[in-house]
């Protein structure tokens, strides 16, 4: 497979090493088990935030470790959730004595492994809360299924809750905030190309010249539907309407609009989507007051985009604006 890699089974380790070498003032790496933690961890007296998941979504999550966001990130193999002992070790390493929040994306693997880790940590007397993020409206929800996937809202929850933790909020308050972010956020994505897992060298699916996977996740799993290519404004509408209708977002709502590139889509195109999305939001009476545009939660080399809308309240807005000092998201410091 033609990628900038060495041994396929060393991809994750080498990328983590490179990432930490490139931001030594912000983050450090522990190997075996692998986790990335703040350069100044543990922060005594502060609630610690830990997240993680499969690799292949860079900069998420390791790129979000640092002051004002995560205390630690646990990267699994490509598209494979981390293991309980890894999560346990990372959590223990950043434990500041005020409890730990696990921010978990709703995939069976992530949920089970974080759950096992939480049990191990609780046995050690560490207070653990978990919030499961499930914002993807492409997935039909039901009591009898695994439910919706966690996608773009994860990034927003990590930023906002990270600022709350930095400001000294306690574990209950941060857990409630995280739950409320998840309840107030909805996302949907589409892919113009598959991704290729460097560990296996196989493309996740094949698409015709003119085909799009609509309702895509971030692990190369096929979407809900295959549709023909349409102009960006139409495709944006096909993502925005299900999002707006699902919560539902209502006229007068203040929102954060997040346009996320899936890896191989140029910023040029993301900006065209942003333009269409903000116009649609305005047409629905939504006031976009905060924005994020870029490749923050990717699917390796997949071309495509996801859109997330978060209904902001004042505390979310304030925490969003607070300083964040991580390799991938940085302002105010």
């Amino acid at each position, binding site marked *: 497979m033609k990628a900038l890699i060495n041994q396929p089974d060393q991809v994750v380790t080498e990328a983590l090493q490179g990432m930490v070498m490139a931001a030594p003032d912000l983050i450090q790496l522990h190997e075996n088990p692998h986790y990335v933690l703040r350069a100044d961890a543990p922060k005594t007296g502060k609630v610690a935030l830990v997240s993680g998941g499969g690799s292949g979504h860079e900069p998420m999550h390791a790129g979000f470790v640092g002051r004002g966001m995560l205390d630690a990130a646990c990267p699994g193999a490509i598209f494979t959730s981390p*293991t309980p002992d890894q999560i346990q070790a990372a959590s223990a390493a950043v434990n500041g004595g005020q409890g730990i929040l696990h921010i978990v994306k709703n995939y*069976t693997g992530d949920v*089970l492994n974080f*759950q096992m880790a939480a049990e191990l940590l609780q046995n050690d007397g560490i207070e653990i809360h978990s919030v499961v993020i499930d914002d993807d409206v492409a997935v039909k929800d039901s009591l009898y299924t695994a439910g919706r996937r966690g996608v773009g809202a994860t990034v927003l929850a990590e930023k906002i809750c990270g600022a709350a933790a930095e400001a000294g909020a306690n574990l209950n308050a941060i857990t409630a905030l995280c739950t409320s972010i998840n309840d107030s956020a909805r996302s949907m994505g589409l892919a113009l190309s598959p991704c290729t897992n460097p560990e296996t060298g196989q493309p996740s699916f094949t698409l015709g010249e003119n085909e799009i996977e609509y309702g895509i996740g971030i692990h190369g799993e*096929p979407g809900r539907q295959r549709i023909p290519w349409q102009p960006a404004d139409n495709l944006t509408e096909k993502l925005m309407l299900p999002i707006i209708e699902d919560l539902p977002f209502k006229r007068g709502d203040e929102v954060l609009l997040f346009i996320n590139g899936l890896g191989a889509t140029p910023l040029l195109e993301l900006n065209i989507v942003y333009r269409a999305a903000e116009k649609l939001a305005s047409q629905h009476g939504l006031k976009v007051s905060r924005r994020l545009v870029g490749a923050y939660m990717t699917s390796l080399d997949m071309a495509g985009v996801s859109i997330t809308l978060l209904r902001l309240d004042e505390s979310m807005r304030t925490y969003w604006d607070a300083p964040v000092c991580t390799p991938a998201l940085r302002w105010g410091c």
Partner: protein
Amino acid sequence: MAYAVASLMQWITCAEEQFQSHLAELNALDAAIGDGDHGSNLARGFAKVREKLQANPPETPASLFKLVGMTLISTVGGASGPLYGSFFLEAGKIAGEQKELDNATLARCLQAGLVGIQRLGKAEAGDKTMIDALEPAIRALTNEADMGVATQKAREGRDATIPLIARKGRASYLGERAIGHADPGATSACLLLNCLAGACPT
């Protein structure tokens, strides 16, 4: 007839070989309705299991099962790591201090493992998961059927996943598009049970 630790080692060694040789096939099944890593996940986990078994050969079925379960949990990740891991951990709890497991005890071990998977994963038969292969096979063994029948049941259960819409795991995101594809976990469960059937009791 009973399964001493040597027979059970045969089981696990065979599983390691099978997951290695079916790596691409399991990945391809998973790519169709999931994220394409089920073969890689199991191959990675069982390779580590073999390494640990060679370094510290266990002396009882229980310690073997515990080692397999712990190793899968700490090296596989994903959904299948905790699920298969719990399967072996729970099986080990039933095995107790016994040096060998007679057929009935082995069936109780497997049944406990199945319960462990279901407690964690909350899947029922018909949800298009590994349960669809494991459940009928282990039920057969509990009812004293022989291994050949059990593996036959597993295969039928796996094939029965093909027309299903998934309600659990990653395939559930696809809705109707999951129809027409066999579940990768049900397929790996068949391989696992085939290996058990191939292990020689003493």
